[in-house]
């Protein structure tokens, strides 16, 4: 086993983890701020991929799909929060969970009715197809692009949360919404934005993933399970945790695929079990939270 192969495998893992980070981040942001476990998150990832394909086909350009789909699906997410989830905040935590669980089914079946069961190909944009020589081996240009986009989004998100007034309110709102209300901040509006942001992130993950694996109505199911594993390992509600655990899972799966391919799926669940045993709140989670 030479060093180049291991380096390539590490890099494959990072590229794989990048998509997972997008999905887990949205899941974690929504749980952290709103306390809602969004079971429709995988379906919204799938809706994002279909929306991206739809816009790209309509405009003839992948770039419009990449830009418009996350915004449109994010806006759709805000609508979901406003109309369906907001009335449930005063009720038990199970109610939003059940609602989003059902919503996931509704979204999958709606897409099946609109676009068929069999899924559709999503061609790699011509300017990003082909392979690049990394010095250690060849890697698809598109996957390098995905890693780049995710890195940029993470930096923007960090700046937004740390350096802006909105970010300050969001962080404060997550700590203590009661005090925020007393101080005259419209918490409802903040939560609306946060839900839209979380959904927009997973939709972006969907659009980014589509040219690699084509789109189909079931594509969200597996991603949702993986994203839950990531948030549990990283710590429910922790954004840093979602990023670190997402990359960690990508690399773990990739390295296992090199040495024992049959174990590649199980390894993430084994890791989750291990983390739950040793550090139940997750790597970056606060104790006592979920």
């Amino acid at each position, binding site marked *: 086993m030479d060093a180049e*192969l291991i380096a*390539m495998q590490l890099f494959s893992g990072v590229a*794989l983890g990048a998509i997972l980070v997008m999905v887990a981040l949205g899941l974690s942001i929504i749980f952290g701020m709103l306390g809602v476990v969004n079971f429709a998150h995988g379906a919204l990832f799938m809706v994002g991929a279909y929306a991206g394909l739809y816009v790209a086909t309509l405009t003839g350009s992948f770039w419009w799909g990449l830009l418009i789909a996350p915004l449109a699906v994010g806006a759709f997410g805000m609508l979901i929060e406003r109309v369906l989830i907001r009335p449930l905040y005063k009720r038990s935590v199970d109610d939003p969970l059940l609602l989003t669980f059902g919503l996931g089914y509704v979204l999958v079946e709606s897409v099946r009715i609109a676009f068929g069961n069999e899924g559709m*190909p999503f061609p790699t944009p011509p300017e990003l197809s082909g*392979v690049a020589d990394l010095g250690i081996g*060849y890697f698809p240009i598109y996957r390098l692009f995905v890693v780049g986009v995710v890195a940029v989004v993470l930096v923007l998100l960090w700046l937004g949360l740390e350096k802006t007034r909105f970010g300050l309110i969001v962080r404060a709102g997550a700590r203590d919404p009661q005090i925020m209300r007393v101080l005259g901040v419209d918490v409802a509006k903040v939560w609306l934005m946060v839900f839209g942001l979380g959904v927009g992130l997973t939709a972006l993950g969907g659009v980014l993933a589509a040219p690699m694996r084509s789109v189909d109505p079931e594509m969200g199911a597996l991603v949702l399970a993986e994203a839950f594993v990531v948030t549990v390992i990283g710590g429910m509600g922790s954004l840093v945790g979602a990023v670190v655990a997402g990359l960690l899972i990508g690399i773990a799966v*990739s390295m296992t*695929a090199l040495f024992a391919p049959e174990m590649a799926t199980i390894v993430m669940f084994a890791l989750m079990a291990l983390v739950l045993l040793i550090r139940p709140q997750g790597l970056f989670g606060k104790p006592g939270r979920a």
Partner: protein
Amino acid sequence: MTSNGPTSGLPAFRITRRHALAGLAAGTATLAMPGLLRAQAETIRIGFPTPLTGPYAAEAKDQVRSAELAVKLVNDKGGIGGRKVELLVRDDKMNAGEAATRTLELIEKEKVHAVVGSLSSAVQLAINEVTRARGVIFVSISQSDTINEVKDFSRVTFHEALNPHMTTAAVAKHSFKPGMKIAYLVADYAFGHEILRGFKRAQAAIGAESVGEILHPIGAPDYSTFMPRLRAMKPDILCICNFGRDQANSIKQAVDFGLNKQAKIVVPVLLYTQRLGIGAEAYEGVIGGANYYWKLQDTLPSAKAFNDAYKAAYNGAYPTDYGAYGFTGISSLLLAMEKAGGTDTDKVVAALENLTYDVAKGPQHYRKCDHQSVQSVLVLQSKAKADTPDQADPFRILAVEPASEDILRSCAELGFPS
């Protein structure tokens, strides 16, 4: 009108008596000729479980369209002995438990006369368990070697699809060469394992060499983590043993990683739906087997007739490989019912065993010992974009292995007493 009672009572009594008499007469007739009366009344119901949702949905949809065409053609000609035929399609979600439940429901509630369908080796065996236990005829249209073997044999089961053994032997014959290095990427379930076993058997006979096998979970969306290792194996042939959406995704990702530049890609079954979906570039040069390709019409009148009927029914579309199974499977069953003069299980089984049919791809018959359909195997290659002026004609026929029992494992090898 004071004595109203008796007069109003009388006609009522008469009607009742008349009904009773009519009923009695009908009852006597039924007792005298029970088969005849029922035969005229009852439609022939065929259950059709197939994975309408999931990674094989595209192929399942084509199976249904072709099966419905076969039923329609028979009904247009007046049905079987005057009885209409009805197809009851159910989504088995490619899950063995779901398939068993749906099949049981078809048998118990819908009282189907036979079951045709399935599109996954594992699910097919689950359906076979149910139909075998209930003694209901099952025509399987999904690849399997196990279903031919003596331990899974059912007197009432017929295997219309190709099996992995005959498919891989034909494909290997026209793609493997002595001394070649072959790397395998295999879907980790019954079909993948049987295909791998078939290819390795053929590879040993040809004198090629295996440089590695990688198993992937069925329905996996991402294959990137396997690519660096497959590349490091430096194979001459990358043999991708999976199906449906998995085939398109894994081929596309192998090409994304540039593996097609160093190795030729070979698959057990070259899927028409997936190739049309993904496009010519990713599939260029890929070699694989098939039970059917519409271009057979250049030499076969039955293929021409099938294509024409299909095009007329579905807006000029051509039938596909796995779609054709729906047509040949239903057609063989209905031909046998026609010969048997109805749906009596023993008579239909006997008729199927003695049937020779040519409905789409040249002569076929079910071998006596294992009920495997003896039929031709096509070897196809996907053409380059520049060579594909007709979008509907993406493949070149490299070879047609003629229908012969020689390309099957012998009855003795399967464990049947000779």
